[in-house]
């Protein structure tokens, strides 16, 4: 399976027709004759430029524009059976509708592969292509590919989920881009391993994999510092991920009437760990009643977190969740009220996506409970 079979192979195969293994292979190869569905915007679909950007979605049999070359580049007897075209504005404004439409079309066409673009720098096109590819991949489960310039906003949104070929900004590079798209599709459909982004021409998905090298880290450190101090080019083994800045919320205008909650990622849980909080990369958070407590007692709590020396917290849990001091402030009228529960999770080595979800869930609960401000304690 996976080898391209041509007519010579078929002739040869007739001599071995008795061989069941070969018949099996033959069947598999027949099935991999590729039916491709292709998504284009109004411009590449031949409808027109920006003035046609509000054109709704339509579907045509056969290949259009870039699809013609694409179907020749994919191995085997591949064919673009259906081309879906949609205006950029319409797609941007009706993304869910377009996505459903494309997913249904792909299913009806019994497509083996799905391609969107290339989109180059066109932002609305890129975002739509990315969203549609991600949906087809997730819902239909067939190989998908698109292509964009690295600056395209579709890249940051979908690079982790799908393969996005780096098309650059130059539309003149169309045929090279299509070649790379076809190459990666061929590998995907044959379940071959996809190589490093630089070899394959796709934009890094941000997935970490180990490689065993000849040179140890020390050699690489020295090579890099020598190049860097000499002003020569060097290649970092990890580039920083850009994160959206999170604006600080406005100050609490009146603390004397505010309800204050404590949230910690230091893993404080009641003795016995009732929610089975894991001590590393917790996927859950807990909320624990402190309504009747003025002071957290040693012995009533455990710490589920392996990343810091938690003896001080076990000695006095108020050092992590400062109920004692908050009660004093409450008493003195400096703050309105201490929220009746504290929220806790284990932040140790917690992946970003997971942390984001935990934070959102906690914020939602506290917001709906009327909490005005939160003290976050981290370890």
């Amino acid at each position: 399976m996976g080898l391209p079979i041509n007519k010579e192979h078929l002739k040869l195969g007739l001599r071995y027709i008795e061989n069941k293994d070969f018949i099996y292979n033959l069947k598999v190869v027949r099935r991999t004759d590729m039916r491709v569905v292709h998504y284009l915007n109004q411009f590449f679909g031949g409808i027109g430029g920006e003035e046609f950007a509000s054109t709704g979605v339509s579907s045509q049999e056969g290949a259009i524009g870039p699809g013609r070359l694409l179907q020749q580049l994919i191995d085997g007897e591949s064919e673009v059976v259906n081309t879906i075209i949609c205006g950029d504005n319409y797609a941007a404004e009706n993304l869910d509708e377009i996505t459903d439409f494309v997913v249904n079309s792909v299913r009806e066409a019994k497509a083996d592969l799905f391609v969107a673009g290339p989109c180059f720098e066109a932002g609305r096109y890129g975002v739509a292509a990315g969203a549609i590819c991600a949906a087809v991949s997730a819902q239909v489960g067939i190989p998908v590919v698109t292509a964009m310039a690295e600056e395209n906003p579709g890249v940051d949104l979908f690079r982790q989920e799908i393969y996005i070929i780096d098309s650059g900004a130059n539309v003149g590079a169309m045929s090279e881009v299509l070649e790379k798209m076809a190459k990666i599709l061929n590998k995907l459909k044959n379940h071959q391993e996809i190589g490093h982004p630089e070899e394959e021409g796709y934009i890094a998905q941000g997935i970490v994999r180990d490689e065993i090298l000849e040179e140890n880290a020390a050699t690489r450190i020295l090579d890099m510092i020598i190049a860097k101090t000499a002003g020569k080019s060097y290649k970092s083994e990890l580039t920083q991920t850009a994160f959206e800045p999170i604006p600080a919320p406005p100050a609490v205008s009146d603390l004397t009437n505010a309800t204050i909650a404590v949230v910690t990622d230091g893993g404080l849980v009641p003795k016995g760990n009732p929610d089975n909080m894991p001590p590393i990369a917790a996927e859950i958070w807990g909320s624990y009643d402190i309504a009747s407590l003025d002071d957290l007692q040693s012995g009533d709590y455990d710490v589920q977190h392996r990343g810091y020396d938690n003896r001080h917290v076990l000695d006095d849990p108020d050092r992590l969740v400062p109920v004692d001091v908050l009660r004093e402030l409450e008493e003195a009228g400096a703050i309105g009220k201490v929220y009746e529960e504290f929220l806790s999770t284990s932040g140790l080595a917690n992946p970003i996506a997971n942390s984001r979800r935990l934070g959102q869930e906690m914020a939602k609960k506290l917001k709906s409970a009327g909490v005005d401000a939160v003290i976050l304690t981290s370890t």
Partner: protein
Amino acid sequence: MKNLTSLITGFTKFALKPFNTRFKQLFENDPSIDRGYQVDITCVNEGGLAPMEATMELEIINHDIDNMVFGDSTVLSGKELAIDHDGLKEYLLEDRRLQDIDIQIAKPGESCRIGVVFDIIEPRAKEAGSGSDFPGLLGPFAVAGQGSTHVLRGSAVTVIDPSAVPGITSKVLEMQGEPASASPYGNLHHLVLSPKVLDDSPRHVVQNVLRMLSVKAAVYLGNAAQGKKSDQVEIYSQNENDNESREGIPRIAYIAQIHGHQMTVEEDEPILYGSNTEGMMPILLNPNEILDGALVASYWVMRVETYFYQNHPLIKELLSRHQSKEITFTGVIATVAASKETDRNRNCMLAASMAKSTLKADGVVLTKYGGGAPHVDMGETARLCEAMGMPTVVQVSDSSGDRKAESAMLFNYPEVDAVVYGGGGDTGWDVGTPERVIAGTPGVAKTLKDMKYIEGAALCGITNQQGASKIRATVY
């Protein structure tokens, strides 16, 4: 504790030879002293401190070992090291905090699994009269990194932690197959010490016992090479630093975290010249000092063994590039990752300014210790160095639990843009049942025996953070 303090104060007034014996006798005669605070005093300077040599030159005399056996006495003959099992045992049991100790030999290629490892040390001893073994910890204070040191290359003293908990597989040594070839420890002859410490000893006492016996055994073996010649001699000297011919060659400093205060250090936890590094601010070290016994691994370690300090891959690389005049290696600034913000800021500021003003570095390389949090100290120091005009390279460990690059970094400074990325998160090997397991307890032995798969991070020597690892995490 009060008793002990008054005892020591009183004791120093009549400090007579032999200090060590007398101190022990006092303990023996005073049952009121909590056994947990007993200290194995070995580092004694008689007649005051010795001045440093005029030049910092270290001669490493390598003696290759290709066989390790038990014999009537501890002798190095050719490449075979014979060890007097009973003699060594008796010597180690002088530490009265020990109940018993099991001593075994594990050879490369043997179907043998060992764990949980407390530390691995290369057997070494200073040539008599030319310095002190593990000064400040075992031997008297003396600046390490000078004189001659015998090294039994190809062998190791490996100490098992008797307090390890069954069910957790970490710090394992595998002597056979792929994991053995992947680890720098797989091809060594190990003298494996599995001690039993007195019942109910506090954890820090257990750890102190392990630390002391590890260095004692390493020197005990190393002494077998006393007076012996070898044609495998390395000279570590940086006197070329003063040479004018180094003009135009970039001056590179190394800012090395030697500990991380993520975990509180113990009073009796020797790390640097016997110091537990509490309250430590950045200090300048000659690289030879680290190679020659000034530094041992702390009790709470991740991905480092003392063996790596003795053969520090990054220091050796810096020295080698110094030799080839690609760089001028200006020295090591040893620092610790802090647990308090004020300590962090102070340490980062002083380390960076020391690189700039004292070492006049053109560039700085940085490594970290321990787990996640020390990345922050390293990142901040590197950012400061960059801001002071010193380009940097840092080695980070992959922190992405979900194998996503977005979760990989624990600092985010655009200036710190040259990163060597150590991996290990998805490297591992299927393993079979070994014929022999050396462990501290039957429970741990069962855990080790039943292992079907060994993760790179659980195997000693694979995911080292000081330049040794060959595993790179690559972003796809």
